[in-house]
């Protein structure tokens, strides 16, 4: 009789430790703030990683939101699209990864945004830094994408 609640407790604790968008931040990142939707993290040299969710009352498809994103960034903001590709999270769900370049405060910046369609929510991962810093950490961010929940 005692064993069953114990098993449930262990499973419950296990699920708690692995819950959240990314159990561990990519190498070199420190989490500054975390909630159930995601977290903000930074590196010692100023790169920024932001994972968060937005409600999707319209229940749009991934392709629609990804195209809307590219349209806004390239047409409305003047970002330069460097690459766009499909990625997968830990559940094998397909996401849309878009790499942009732009100028922020007079300095060229790179910006990686990954969008996942989770039905009623849109999960967004953003990673940005000046070009040199971006290049230093982008591999770690990309390597962490398959662990995203």
């Amino acid at each position, binding site marked *: 009789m005692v064993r069953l609640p114990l098993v449930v407790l262990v499973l419950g604790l296990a699920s708690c430790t692995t819950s959240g968008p990314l159990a561990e931040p990519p190498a070199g990142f420190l989490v500054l703030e975390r909630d159930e939707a995601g977290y903000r993290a930074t590196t010692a040299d100023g790169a920024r990683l932001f994972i968060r969710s937005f409600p999707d009352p319209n229940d749009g498809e991934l392709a629609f939101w990804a195209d809307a994103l590219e349209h806004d960034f390239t047409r409305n903001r*003047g970002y330069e699209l460097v690459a766009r590709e499909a990625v997968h999270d830990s559940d094998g769900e397909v996401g849309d990864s878009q790499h942009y370049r732009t100028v922020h405060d007079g300095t060229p910046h790179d910006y990686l945004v990954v969008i996942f369609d989770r039905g009623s929510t849109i999960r967004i991962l953003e990673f940005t830094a000046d070009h040199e810093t971006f290049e230093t950490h982008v591999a770690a961010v990309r390597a962490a994408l398959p662990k995203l929940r």
Partner: protein
Amino acid sequence: MRFLALLMTVALAGCSAVAWNAGAEKSIPSTATRAYFDSAEPSMAHELASGFAGPVETAVLTPATPPAETRRLMVYSAQVAVSVARPEEAFEALEAETERLGGYLLSRRGSTIVVRVPAAQFRSFVEFVKARGRVVDESMQAVDVTDQYRDLTIRLDNAKKARERLISLLDRAEKVEDILEIEKELTRLTTEIESMTAQRKALDERIAFSEISISVGGVRPRTQQARRFSEFGWINAIGVEEVMQW
């Protein structure tokens, strides 16, 4: 009087080259250049054929070289405008690629650079330019100069022959007025030959090298342009500007 009559004949022969050539163009299909050359004077045919062979080899962009009868002399050019994050890096890359392909920088003024690359590298270079950033505008032109080149070559050849005949006449001329008249005509022909030679050289250059004008614009930060907002709120809430201000 005899010399003057001869002079007139030589001059008319030189002038008639164009008319004769124009007639030849009408009666001969434009693609049958080889047959046309074979029917011309042996020396002229040889020069024309050799004159065609050089530029054509570099102008043909398709891997397989077509038969001589179908070869055309083409002048290719393009204008591309790209928007990039780092214009200076883009300029450096463009100049390096131009040099690597055996081309050269023609001019650089403000944000526009004009280069010439070997015609065989035209398409690949344009693709290289377009891959530098977001293409804002693009146009390409291909001009067939086969007839223009042939006409110029024939006119040049005839002018040279006419000058040779005038020099021969000059050797035999005795009267001062004949000599003056021949020398006047020789001067005119020499000027004409020099002009046509320069024209053909320029045409050779345009055939062998394609000219590409590239305008490089920097991506403007949001503060410098009137940003329009997305109708989707969550899209307006993300981006470099938002992340850097968290």
